[in-house]
């Protein structure tokens, strides 16, 4: 679909007819073949498989088969964790980015904070889980410190790193930096004139934020949130390294299904994977639409 023939445009000099033959698209063939074979075809195979029976005829049974208590709860917990880590990531990331760009902090903070965000947003997967186990696990640094010095027993308070909140707090380690990296340009794009104009018209600080800055930033914030949602919904490695298979979330369920057919029906596995594509696809569609809207203000 990327390789539609298109004649060279914007050629001012008259060209001989031979050069006009639309053969330029041939240069895209290697890329198109690679993408088709190793990205699109595997995905399509899963999508089609979700709507096929074992003997190949069309069916909705696989997708309907997802509607069992355990799979429903897996999707629900996954969506909850993704929502929680995306909204908290947005909130904290926004506050930190706003503090850095508008809070009147020394300029020297900016460079290191952005560099650190680049590193931390890439520090995901298995090692991240280890870091949090060593910090908030049963004998982790913070757990032990709170217990021996302040007498607070996290376990008695019902906190467990292998749980909804444990996973959410861990995911925030790559969610917050991603938010900082994406939202900083949008915050930089807030023009000083807008604030001055609002103040001349008598707006207070909160009024400026509520009626001018926030509506401008809203698409960017919501769009980034959709991206963060998809980001944590598809995260497999961190979850498996942190919880083994003790937490029933979609990526872990699918991982176990691929490894050993735990659902007892390979086509149910396709349906499970298809569900993941649908959820992350919706989230990313929201991101793309809202990003296009938010970029209008940055010109």
């Amino acid at each position, binding site marked *: *679909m*990327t390789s*539609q023939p*298109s004649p060279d*445009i914007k050629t001012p000099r008259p060209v001989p007819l031979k050069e006009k033959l639309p053969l*330029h698209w041939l240069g*895209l063939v*290697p*890329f198109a073949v*690679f*993408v088709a*074979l*190793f*990205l*699109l*075809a*595997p*995905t*399509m*195979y*899963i999508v089609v*498989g979700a709507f096929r029976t074992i003997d190949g005829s069309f069916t909705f049974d696989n997708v309907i088969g997802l509607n069992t208590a355990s799979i429903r709860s897996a999707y629900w917990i996954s969506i909850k964790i993704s929502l929680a880590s995306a909204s908290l990531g947005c909130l*904290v990331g926004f*506050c*930190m980015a706003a*503090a850095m760009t508008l*809070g*009147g*902090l020394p300029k020297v903070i900016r460079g290191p904070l952005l*560099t650190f965000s*680049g*590193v*931390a947003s*890439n*520090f995901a997967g*298995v*090692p991240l889980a*280890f*870091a*949090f*186990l*060593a*910090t908030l696990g049963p004998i982790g*640094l913070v757990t032990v410190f709170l217990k021996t010095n302040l007498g607070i027993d996290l376990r008695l308070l019902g906190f467990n790193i292998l749980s909804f909140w444990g996973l959410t707090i861990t995911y*925030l*380690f790559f969610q*917050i930096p991603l938010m900082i990296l994406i939202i900083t340009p949008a915050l930089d794009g807030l023009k000083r004139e807008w604030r001055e104009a609002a103040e001349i018209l008598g707006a207070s600080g909160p009024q400026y934020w509520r009626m001018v800055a926030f509506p401008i930033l809203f698409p960017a914030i919501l769009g980034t949130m959709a991206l963060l949602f998809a980001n944590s919904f*598809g995260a*497999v*490695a961190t979850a498996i*390294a942190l919880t083994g298979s003790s937490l029933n979330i979609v990526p872990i369920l*699918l991982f176990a299904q*691929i*490894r050993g057919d735990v659902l007892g029906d390979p086509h149910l596995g*396709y349906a499970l*994977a298809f569900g*993941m594509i649908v959820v*992350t*696809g919706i989230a*990313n569609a929201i991101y793309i639409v809202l990003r296009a809207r938010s970029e209008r203000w940055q010109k």
Partner: protein
Amino acid sequence: MKRLAAWAALAFGALYFLLPLMGMTEFSLKMRRGVYSLDAYARVLADPKFQETFSYSVIMAVFTILFGVLLVVPTAYWVRLKLPRARPYVEFVTLLPLVIPAIVVVFGYIRLYNTSSWLPLTGTATGTNILLMFGYATLSLPYMYRAVDTGLRTIDVTTLTEAAQSLGAGWATILGRLILPNVLVAVLSGAFVTLAIVIGEFTMAALLNRPAFGPYMQLLGANRAYEPAALAVIAFAITWGCMGLIQLVARLAPKPATPVKD
């Protein structure tokens, strides 16, 4: 008041980010009872499995980077030069790996390229390695393509190409000796991101059963106490190193040659 809130937000964030880093560092030093020691690191580094899996992943990263450069640089160049109208579509496709979870893609690989298919890549170790490399290449595609495309934006592709052509250069010469050196900084920054991704990648390697560093770390985490923390410190250092190298390359590299316009 505003400044106070700003400092508070920053302090809260700093605390959240520093505690896990301190936690893993402290934990990795506690293997010997009562005193801090580097025993966990010594144990990890001496583990033949560590050396095997780590070098496997580094080699995979090198091949992924080479393949990615060979695929992305000519494509991005060609799109800029001849097919500007295809650009949004190509860009959209390169962003798809952010939409489709890696676990779904590798699930498709396992079903599509198994021993009874038309392209039985998973039948042999070499075939599976190649398949895994393609998988890694798709994972790094969004970063590689963006980096190279941004690099190409800073040079005048059309003029450079026409100048080279009028001096008698063929396509291979143009790409290898003209375009590539000019976007080298961009290519390198894409390469370091790829390196960081491939070294820590878990899902694809685990499901394709390859002895990579990610699955090794996970296995160690399930069975040991202190070594995983040491591994986490090492992995963090590698990530930091990759990102640092990107900045270093961008800062030290000579500015891309601008075409002479007179």
